[in-house]
């Protein structure tokens, strides 16, 4: 047992039990479990395929319920109410809270957190529930459903800012903004992501190379701290708290309101370029981002030999400038030319005709959903988030939204994508890669410390999501988790990171960020959350 293990375990009061278990295992030598190379504070002796935390046993729960009920907080304990939250979008982690509270006001949440500290009851906060590693699943304790706080409070058309409650889905924020001809800057291509959840973990869009991740755009926040104080914070007010909250995986407070920048709404002028291999496509993406020639860029693969580079523009002028100056430098082809080249290539490789048929089927199924008639007018796409999100759920969503990812600096990106692609090929016959750039803000470097933004990235970080397509095949949870872990292993070996909604598994935190960073933030967490009850087991 390492020194670090003995240091951490007393914090949870588990030292005796675990030491006993380890001794039994060491003495008998009968464990069939593989050697466990994961972090020192991960679940000892349990292979990484099973990283669900243990369930909180409900100590002082009746007293806690009595206390909060007396304060007028509605706590739902019926199974039909708690069962709604049994898993997250990942669908690999399952857990039931003891009770559910639907968030209504910051004051209510503050009272809840004070009581939770007093009775040491874990509180798991959930927005859209789009985590993939069980981060928004409560393994006992209270599940706080933030979607109850989802009103837009004020739209300032002159200053181009919006103040909103943080439980709102980005889709509903867009619905309200659109009535004034406005739009948010960028948000995850998933309609049911919540603003608060996204600000805590990142949030990428096909315009993140221009605007950065969603979390980087927050101007000011109202936060309920783990000890129940209601605090306003920003870069200039309570800036240390702001640093911890943004990209802080929900460890240092609950975002109840957010002020965000908005912009005038514009439809998209879209272009697709097709590549026969990953490397030139990724290199062209890097070139495009550094040229600032496009408003939207991203890569979407159909298979290893059919890769799509998406570029789009907010104005005709930007589109025209791109077509005249930058397009000739791209190595991709238009749809017709690429189709002809592919057909020629397949014609003398009959053993690959099945791939050709897959591509044709994919094109027939997917393309109409990426350019639906109801959202296209005069060659422009309206409400891209709706279009992309519905396509994501239709073609890649399922009971298990398994989307591991890697985030790197520019130099490591090609290797990360190619190695991740090889892992996909090993596990699934069909899969998709989705790659985008993420513009970084130097003045926000402190925000990135615990986050998925790699420490060695400057200017842009680059993210790649690896998305299996199940095609009706049922994969076991072990298979899916092993696939994810193997992607994360690539990240560890490349000394880089992972991004996306909560894709930081606890078992990897020390390997990814190193002991010094984790120790620093653990101490901050212990100060901010003495009972260690807020979103426990996500990172610490």
């Amino acid at each position, binding site marked *: 047992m390492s020194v670090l293990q003995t240091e951490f375990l007393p914090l949870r009061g588990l030292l005796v039990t675990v030491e006993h278990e380890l001794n039994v295992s060491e003495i008998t030598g009968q464990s069939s479990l593989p050697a466990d190379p994961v972090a020192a504070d991960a679940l000892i002796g349990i292979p990484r395929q099973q990283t669900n935390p243990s369930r909180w046993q409900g100590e002082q729960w009746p007293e806690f319920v009595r206390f909060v009920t007396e304060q007028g907080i509605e706590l739902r304990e019926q*199974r*039909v*109410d*708690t*069962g*709604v939250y*049994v*898993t997250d*979008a990942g*669908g690999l982690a399952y857990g039931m809270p003891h009770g559910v509270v*639907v968030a209504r006001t910051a004051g209510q949440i503050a009272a809840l957190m004070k009581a939770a500290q007093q009775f040491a009851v874990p509180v798991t906060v959930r927005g*859209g*529930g789009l985590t993939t590693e069980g981060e928004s699943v409560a393994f006992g304790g209270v599940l706080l*459903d933030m*979607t*109850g*706080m*989802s*009103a837009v409070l004020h739209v300032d058309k002159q200053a181009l800012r919006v103040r909103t409650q943080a*439980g709102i*889905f980005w*889709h*509903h924020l*867009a*619905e*309200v903004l*659109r*009535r*004034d001809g406005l739009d948010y800057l960028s948000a995850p291509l998933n*309609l*049911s992501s919540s603003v608060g959840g996204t600000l805590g973990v990142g949030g990428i869009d096909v315009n993140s190379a221009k605007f950065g991740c969603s979390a980087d755009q927050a101007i000011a926040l109202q936060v309920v701290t783990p000890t129940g104080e209601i605090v306003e914070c920003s870069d200039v007010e309570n800036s240390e708290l702001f640093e911890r909250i943004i990209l802080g995986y929900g460890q240092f407070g609950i975002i109840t309101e957010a002020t965000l920048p908005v912009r005038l709404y514009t439809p998209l002028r879209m272009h697709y370029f097709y590549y026969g291999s990953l490397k030139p496509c990724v290199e062209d993406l890097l070139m495009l981002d550094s040229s600032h020639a496009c408003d939207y860029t991203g890569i979407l693969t159909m298979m290893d030999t059919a890769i799509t580079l998406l570029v789009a523009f907010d104005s005709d002028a930007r589109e025209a400038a791109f077509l005249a100056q930058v397009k000739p430098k791209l190595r991709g082809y238009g749809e017709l030319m690429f189709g002809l080249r592919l057909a020629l290539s397949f014609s003398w490789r009959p053993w690959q005709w099945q791939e050709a048929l897959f591509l044709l089927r994919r094109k027939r199924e997917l393309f109409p959903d990426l350019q639906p*008639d*109801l*959202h296209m*007018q005069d060659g422009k796409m309206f*409400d891209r*988030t*709706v279009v992309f*999100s*519905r396509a994501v*759920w*239709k073609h890649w*969503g*399922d*009971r298990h939204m398994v989307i591991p990812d890697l985030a790197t600096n520019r130099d490591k990106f090609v290797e990360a994508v190619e190695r991740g692609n090889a892992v996909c090929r090993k596990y699934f016959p069909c899969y998709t890669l989705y790659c985008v750039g993420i513009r970084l803000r130097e003045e926000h470097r402190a925000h990135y410390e615990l986050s998925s933004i790699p420490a060695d990235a400057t200017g842009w970080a680059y993210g790649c999501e690896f998305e299996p397509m199940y095609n009706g095949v049922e994969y076991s949870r072990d298979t899916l988790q092993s696939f994810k872990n193997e992607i994360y292993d690539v990240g560890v070996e490349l000394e880089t990171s992972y991004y996306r909604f909560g894709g930081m598994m606890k078992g990897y935190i020390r390997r990814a960020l190193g002991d010094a960073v984790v120790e620093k933030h653990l101490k901050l967490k212990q100060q901010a959350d003495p009972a260690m009850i807020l979103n426990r087991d996500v990172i610490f």
Partner: protein
Amino acid sequence: MPSFSDCYGCSLCLLSCPMWLQRRDVRFSPQGYAKAMQHGADGSEMAETLSACIQCGACDLLCPAGIDLTGMINTALQQSDLANKQHDQPSTDWFAMSCDPALRHALREDDLYIIDAVAFHRHHARRALHYEKLRQATGCSMNLDLNRMAVATGIGSMAARLQSFDLRKQVEWLLQGRNVQRIIVENPADQAVLIAMTGKPVLHLSELTGSSAGHA
């Protein structure tokens, strides 16, 4: 046909659900019903939440798992004590009248055209593009959300009669941010309430096309 047990909680059905938009509580949503049923609830235990559904049918179109959510809700209603307060009979279908060329000439940019949500969602695949073209041709606004689902008024629904759906809130949301001078409705049931609540001229579709109401 996928059933409630196939709901994996993506929340897409919440996005256009008038009931959820008012309550902001997942229990008041098709997903909430499905999840409750997955954990053993039947209609009688969900009577309160079921009573708030205006059965506009938008959720059916948004569910990526293809669950017949309206059918699921109807089954649950049969199990509840709401079963004897059965939902509205399908109203007259005004779609044919909306295809009248006279309507294109009569609609103005400052009109709000309120599509009858139930019929629209039931025949969405065939009708959505028609309304989109009508909107583009006339410049009028319509009660369509970003998903291109019709925002239902809820007027005339069982939920409204049971006073478990806030009509005023819904009409306020329909009008928010819109510079509307006239409101054109397909379903005559919407007319009286909208006149009373908005103070704007509220015309039935037939008044623009010159048809008699029975023509549809």
